[in-house]
């Protein structure tokens, strides 16, 4: 397993290299640069040149890339041109914020969606099944920025139960931190439940067809025991892989939800940094996001044998 993990990590290096080249090139292809943004309509040629020089943008792009790469290898992701903070600190701090929200949301989604999906599969084609399928499809198709605003208006404004905006880190104050997370998490949960229910239903249907389910019934087990002890774990495998993909994608930041609920997370940092042409931050973030994605999927693969002992981490 160790060997598998290390091989996978090694094989991620070329991928990460491609990511860095792509990010570096892509962001420099975008018109506009941080110098002109800082100067706004005051810009003239001299001022721009001077600002670019202090930002290190006067060098040819390949040279900039090599300098950056050299620093990255030594663990230095550079500093933000926007506010001079070390990119690594910035990324880690923002990631922690996004991650706690995403992990809670995905965790809850799984807890809700998997039983629903299983119930739908168990009563395939029944009223319950049709309702669950239709509802999950509907949830899937409401844009999160819209859903988020509705939730904000309902719980924050109309009912006044929850703070409309602001953010407190769970680390600083666990109770308050959780309260601020309720609405963003709810938004994410409603969306992800839609996706996971469909997968859980499909994989449960596959499993329910198999003989060991009949075998379990033949042993005299009750329906709930059959579903819980025999179907659940085996049906969870494909869902688990999907969860990995969802996590990998969401941990890169949920820019929209973070914008709606004023959460200072990684997604908003990336979007803001793209808008601000904060090259070092965009590069650092996307490299980090790619690494996270690869790591999450590695962890998912390493844990897969828990749900299906036939699969060994090879």
């Amino acid at each position: 397993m160790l060997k598998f993990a290390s091989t996978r990590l090694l094989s991620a290096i070329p991928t990460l290299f491609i990511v860095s080249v792509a990010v570096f090139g892509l962001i420099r292809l975008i018109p506009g640069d941080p110098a002109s943004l800082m100067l706004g309509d005051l810009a003239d040629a001299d001022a721009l040149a001077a600002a670019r020089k202090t930002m290190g943008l006067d060098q040819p792009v390949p040279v900039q890339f090599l300098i950056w790469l050299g620093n990255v290898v030594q663990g230095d992701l550079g500093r933000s041109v926007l506010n001079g903070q070390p990119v690594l600190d910035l990324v880690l701090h923002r990631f922690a914020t996004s991650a706690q929200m995403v992990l809670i949301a995905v965790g809850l989604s799984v807890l809700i969606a998997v039983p629903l999906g299983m119930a739908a599969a168990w009563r395939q084609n029944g009223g319950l099944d049709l309702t669950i399928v239709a509802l999950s499809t509907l949830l899937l198709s409401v844009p999160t920025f819209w859903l988020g605003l509705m939730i904000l208006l309902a719980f924050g404004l109309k009912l006044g139960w929850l703070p409309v905006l602001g953010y407190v880190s769970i680390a600083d104050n666990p109770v308050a931190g959780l309260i601020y997370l309720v609405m963003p998490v709810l938004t994410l949960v409603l969306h992800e439940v839609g996706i996971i229910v469909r997968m859980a239903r499909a994989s449960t249907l596959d499993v329910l067809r198999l003989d060991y389910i009949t075998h379990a019934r033949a042993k005299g087990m009750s329906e709930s025991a059959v579903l819980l002890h025999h179907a659940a774990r085996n049906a969870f495998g494909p869902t688990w892989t999907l969860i990995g993909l969802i996590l990998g994608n969401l941990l890169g930041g949920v820019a929209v939800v973070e914008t709606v609920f004023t959460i200072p997370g990684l997604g908003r940092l990336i979007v803001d940094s793209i808008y601000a042409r904060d090259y070092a931050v965009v590069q650092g973030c996307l490299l980090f996001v790619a690494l996270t994605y690869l790591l999450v999927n590695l962890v998912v693969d390493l844990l897969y044998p828990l749900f299906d002992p036939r699969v060994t981490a090879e």
Partner: protein
Amino acid sequence: MSLSRSLLHACLSSVALALPGLAMASTLTVQITADIRSSQPGINRDAGTDSVMLNVVEGLVAAGEKGEIRPMLAKDWSVSADGKAYTFTIRDGVKFHNGETMTAADVEWSLEKLIRDPEFSCKTFFDGSRDAKVETIKATDDRTVVITLDRPDAMFLNYMAQAQCGSTGIVHRASFNGDGSWKAPVATGPFVFGDWKRGEGLVLKKFADYSITGDKPDGYGGRKDVLVDQVKYMVVPDTATAVAGLRSGALDVLPYLPPGEAAKLKDEKDFTIVAAPHGGLVTMLFQTTDTLMSNVAMRHAVIAALDTPAIVDSVTYGLGIPNNSLVSSGSLYHTATHDKGYVYDPQAVPALLQKAGYKGEKIVILTNRRSAINYDTAIIAQAMLQSAGINAEIEVLEWASQLDRFNSGKYQIMAFNYSNRTDPGLAYQTVVGSKAKKPNTVWDDADVAALVNKSLQEADPEKRQAIFDDLHARFLDQAPFVMLANGLDVGVSGPKVRGYRTWQGFARFWGVERSE
């Protein structure tokens, strides 16, 4: 149900006590759409940063309500006969936030450090590349500072007071770390720079030892009474969320609101809308070197097709005042001459188009989504141009990309806002120049450039008035771009807030009260 409801409330309110920012001290909570770039005034800044930092720092002089220069840290000043030496006498007993009393030596050190900093955003105002060069800054005694220039410069004090220059604010040595890097501002303003959580917001605290001067608030000068314990800025990028926050009481002031949003809140009694035009320009720029737009008849055709008052009315939801002159509507120089503007005359368009030899070529209007005014202007203008037979299309760019196009001059028509220019001369200076030297220049005319320079060096108001009248006539004749209105900043304050006003687009928090 009601029991559980009240339990929930009890639970939440006990939590609320624990929440920072909801503590009992009187706190004014203010939206900012983006985090500040740095806490170092004049260096690494943008308009939002200036707006926050100018509550913390002060310069020797400040801009007054109408753009005139007022004393701030300087009690008064004198200019030598040759116009090259400025002698400032600083006020007694002004305290820095760390409790130390400000001396002339502090001023010398601070100005020297800022003006010579290669990253100073107003470097070109003071190094001779635009106007005069600052030769020396000397503290001649404990209370006197002398600044000498290489040539006379009528705008020098204006530059000193500019917000983008951080009002050339005076900071204490303790603002820097031992290695010379920036730490945090230790300045003289009415608010002390407090806790800054990057990406979330920051807190300014009342400065108890602030030395009050003047008798009433006057722009960035005058009397500054702090009536709250602290101002808490929260980064809320989404307008709809911010409005919800205002309604729920989580936010007290939204200093910058799209006019459309403000218009909706206008009729609700709880909210106070503050709208004030400033010296900025709301425009649609023409690229006069473009094959199509270089034709004056074409530009006149476009202008004739636009019902500019209707556009202004619509994009500002009735809050803005149409103004086709670069002399801002609030300016002393805005006389009846400057009320003469464009004539909406769709019937005249076909003739003008024919004269211009227009054959239905596509014209692209660039705009962005960051400014609701730019965006709406482009949409309405496009519809008006289309119906007048001009084949206009819209391209929406992300703001930085549009700025890049602006700076390189690569566009046909562009909806664009200039930031606040306090003096009409500065407004003309911004748009006039040589495209060869500076591609983001809009109006490239040597005679006009000479006139603009003259206006900047002229101190006599009557002579200046004549120059501005002449410039406006030429502006209408040459139509280098469409001037729609002056910049408009709309803010809103919540039910508990008293005394919040907006001025020149800045959010100042002295003189603002919050009732509990």
